[in-house]
């Protein structure tokens, strides 16, 4: 039986450890790397080395950045009294790209997911509590995903921050712009009704 070369197998094994990559995709990527020119392959290796060497976790907000504090925490023009709590760095990027928020962030590093073995002690909640204790923060906006695990995480964060007298809010939820009411889930519609707002005549 004809097998793959050992070096290709070894590379595919490493790719297969990545999220969402199965063994066939891993093998396809390994052969793609083999087909690269020496210069392209060197650039890929350099990019991986640079990410590992330069990127680190911001000691304030737990964002991933090449500086500590990260550019967001170091930006003096931002509102330092408001912190938006997100699950992942990607969520922070999404909220910031909306252009409607100019405060600071705190990245939890995930959400409580007991079925995956993720518990509060695995998240950056203590770091958030420490920030709030320092006293400058007046409002916390919890922007976890609006599902079972995200809501459980949001409730825990709100409970942990309750003793410190900061205003804690969650993102509004309801029918997405362009969506259709008939397909909305009951809890989505309930959220939309609860969060309704007055329309000026």
């Amino acid at each position: 039986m004809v097998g793959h070369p050992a070096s290709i197998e070894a590379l595919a094994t490493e790719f297969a450890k990545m999220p969402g990559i199965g063994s066939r995709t891993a093998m396809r990527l390994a052969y793609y790397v083999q087909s690269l020119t020496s210069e392209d392959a060197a650039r890929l290796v350099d990019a991986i080395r640079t990410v590992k060497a330069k990127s680190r976790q911001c000691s304030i907000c737990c964002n991933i950045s090449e500086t500590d504090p990260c550019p967001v925490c170091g930006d003096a023009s931002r509102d330092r009294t408001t912190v938006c709590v997100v699950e992942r760095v990607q969520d922070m990027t999404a909220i910031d790209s909306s252009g409607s928020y100019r405060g600071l962030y705190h990245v939890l590093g995930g959400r409580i997911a007991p079925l995956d073995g993720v518990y509060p002690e695995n998240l950056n909640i203590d770091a958030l509590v420490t920030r709030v204790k320092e006293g400058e923060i007046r409002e916390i906006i919890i922007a976890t995903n609006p599902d079972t695990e995200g809501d459980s995480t949001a409730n825990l964060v709100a409970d942990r921050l309750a003793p410190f007298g900061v205003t804690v809010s969650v993102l509004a939820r309801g029918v997405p712009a362009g969506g259709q009411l008939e397909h909305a889930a009951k809890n989505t519609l309930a959220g939309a009704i609860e969060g309704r707002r007055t329309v000026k005549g």
Partner: protein
Amino acid sequence: MPYERTDAITIRYTDFSETSRIFTFYTRRFGRVSALAKGVKRKYSKMIGHVDLLSHSEIIFTSGLSRDRLHILTEANAYETFPNIRKQLPRFYAACHAAELVNNMTSLDDPSPELFDQLLDLLRRRDRNVGTAIALLAFEGQLLLLSGFMPQLSNCVSCGKKNRQKTVAFSPRLGGIVCSKCSTGEAELIHDLPADALSLFERLAQKKLTKLSRVKISPSVTHQTRAFLNRYETYILAKKLHTAKHLG
């Protein structure tokens, strides 16, 4: 391709691609089934919010023809989403533990409407905060009974002698309590289990206690029963469950 319609409880999901997820449901008509929900993570998906973890929905799927029996989810309509379970971590942990147990202790396409109703009843109790400490133990007992793993807790599993001691030793390997004579040489015994806690657990499993909210159980008995169950479940599943870590 035939379409199937059934009541379902979402017990697990994993991301499949940028926009799709594979859901595992425990259904009334088909038992545990897995189904690919294409595009469910898209902003305008018709299924968004209908198949959240631990929610009770009506689902429609096309029967998968592949060997791994992965169906295609075509429609979902949430009946109950149990929002209060999300408000307190102990409720959430208990509901997740029940879901993980069902996912690991049932086979694909092996229906048990009784187990479906027990799981739904547990979620409703956790949502209303009724009989909380004992409801999970009762569910686990009924799951062990229905899946054929209920241990022998009144008589020695080896010689059949009725237990008259206050504390007993339990053998996960033999699946029951063992008397002092039969326990000699038996490895992996769980020692000093209170007999009254095991007796209560047995009655819960056999549904001899109908009004769960009226059953009083001390925190120490709950703790001891919990520890015994965690070790027994780890033994029969040959793995540690993620959700066993923070159960009270």
